[in-house]
């Protein structure tokens, strides 16, 4: 719990290095760094609910996609809104959908929530595929803006903000205590006066709108989106594996997993092209983590790593039908 000044030194060093990065590397590596920051942010968004509250969301890509499509639609004809005005719009659209999905299903056991979020993402993908105003399967183009530094710094700001909010809310406030309490034992949390249904919905909302912000930035960055590129189930899968590998329910786990796996992904792509090799690595990573590393990479640095009743245990128990995430 206690942060000493010493522990802030590597953090400040990392932020300074990241701020200077555009001056140090070429555009090619800057794009990779931009992507790494995005995945660190997305993994963190998934971890808010999955790690801190223990509720597994298999449809997080839906919120990434909602942000991307809202920005694409509003920046295109006929509105042609400025980019930064479309981010709050994406947040509002995402929040509405998150409440519609979360309010009824977060009251149920974890497995129902997981299935509901997965089904929601599928339905949304198919919907975007078939209707006209989203461009259907062909997708949408955004006004091109080819300034790698702009996108690097925008993604950087979004990632820093995401981690700052996560730290303040989940690691440093009463709200975080409530969220972790319901993750570890929902009936006991209720007995402490905590309205668990409400706290879960608030966490889900925050998780969803965070993914939406990264979706907006991503759409403008790549200038072209289609249902597969922003709603694809593999986007959620990657967030899940990144968080598991880095450390479920920890602040820095998603950053380590997100940056690590994305860089591995790019290195494989550079050397062997678009192969299924990366998917095999993801699969192996899940197996290894579940078997040997329940606390992820950050668990390796813990003085006394948890052995029983880990965050992973809680989430898996809940997914398997345990009512309060306890066996």
């Amino acid at each position, binding site marked *: 719990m206690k942060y000493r000044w010493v522990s802030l030194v590597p953090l400040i060093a990392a932020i300074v290095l990241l701020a200077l990065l555009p001056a140090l590397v070429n555009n090619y590596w800057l794009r990779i760094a931009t992507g790494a920051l995005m995945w660190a942010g997305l993994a963190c968004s998934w971890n808010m609910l999955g790690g801190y509250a223990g509720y597994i969301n298999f449809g997080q890509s839906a919120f990434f996609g909602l942000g991307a499509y809202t920005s694409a639609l509003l920046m295109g004809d006929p509105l042609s809104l400025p980019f930064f005005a479309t981010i709050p719009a994406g947040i509002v659209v995402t929040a509405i959908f998150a409440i519609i999905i979360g309010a009824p299903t977060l009251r149920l056991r974890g497995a129902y929530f997981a299935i509901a979020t997965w089904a929601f993402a599928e339905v949304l993908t198919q919907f975007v595929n078939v209707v006209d105003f989203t461009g259907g399967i062909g997708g949408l183009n955004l006004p091109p803006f080819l300034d790698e530094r702009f996108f690097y710094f925008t993604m950087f700001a979004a990632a820093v903000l995401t981690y700052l909010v996560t730290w303040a809310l989940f690691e440093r406030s009463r709200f975080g205590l409530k969220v*972790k309490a319901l993750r570890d*034992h929902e009936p006991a949390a209720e007995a*402490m006066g*905590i309205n668990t249904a409400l706290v879960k919905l608030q966490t889900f909302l925050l998780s969803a709108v965070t993914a939406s912000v990264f979706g907006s930035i991503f759409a403008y960055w790549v200038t072209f989106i289609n249902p597969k590129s922003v709603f694809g189930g593999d986007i959620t899968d990657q967030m899940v594996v990144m968080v598991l590998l880095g450390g479920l329910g920890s602040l820095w786990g998603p950053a380590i997993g997100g940056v690590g796996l994305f860089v591995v992904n790019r290195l494989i792509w550079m050397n062997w092209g678009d192969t299924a090799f990366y998917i095999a690595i993801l699969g192996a990573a899940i197996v290894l983590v579940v078997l040997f590393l329940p606390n992820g990479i950050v668990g390796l640095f813990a003085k006394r790593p948890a052995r029983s009743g880990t965050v992973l245990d809680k989430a898996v128990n809940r997914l398997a039908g345990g009512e309060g995430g306890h066996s």
Partner: protein
Amino acid sequence: MSRTNLAVENDEIRSAGGYILTVHDLYRHFGGINAANGVNLNVGRREIAGLIGPNGSGKSTLFSLVAGTIKPDRGQIHFDGHEIAGMSPHRIARLGLARTFQIPAMFDNMTVTENLLAAAAQDHWQGAHERAADTLSLLKLEHVADNRASDLSGGQQKLLEFGRVIMRQASLILLDEVTAGVHPNIRKIMLEAIARLRERGISFLIIEHDMEMVRNVCDRIIVMDSGRVVASGSFNEIVRNSEVMQTYLGRPQ
């Protein structure tokens, strides 16, 4: 019938000070089993009432009904001026009712201190850090303050569960076999804590199998069987009621 009358008489005697909890004609069935089959009982203000009875007599079901984790089929539960039957657990908790769980319900991935703070996070945050420190010292848990809750021994977990209840600043505390299977030292700490809380005017309803504990702590004993209250009275009254003793408790030591 005669046994039920005994319960009513004793309750009337205690009505002078007013009741913090009144359960009236409470029913709840699971399939064909009537776990609560017309329960009537009262707990007076500042009273420590012991709830005893054989396994399956409906004690834990009654706790769950009062705490709101199970909804009654019918009947009333009046707590501190509020009708709480069917209310959600967190709302009942906010009215000032706190409970422990039969199996320690730890927040496993949080430290001992965080467990205590979490108990106050909703509605008693003012001064929570100081009270957590006081509670740690009262329960002699200072040396494990920064340990994960799941790393504690069984007895320490029971203490921590009790500590969270203290942090709730409740007016009525339901304890479900808190001293079962714990080391005598830990039991002693708990009994001292209960005495301290009673001085503050807190009432207790305690499920307990250990008759020695019941005799030492409880002002009054309520006996349940087959989903209803069959007797109520002082320890000596209950012990003298040989029918109750033989049927439900076995011979006293």
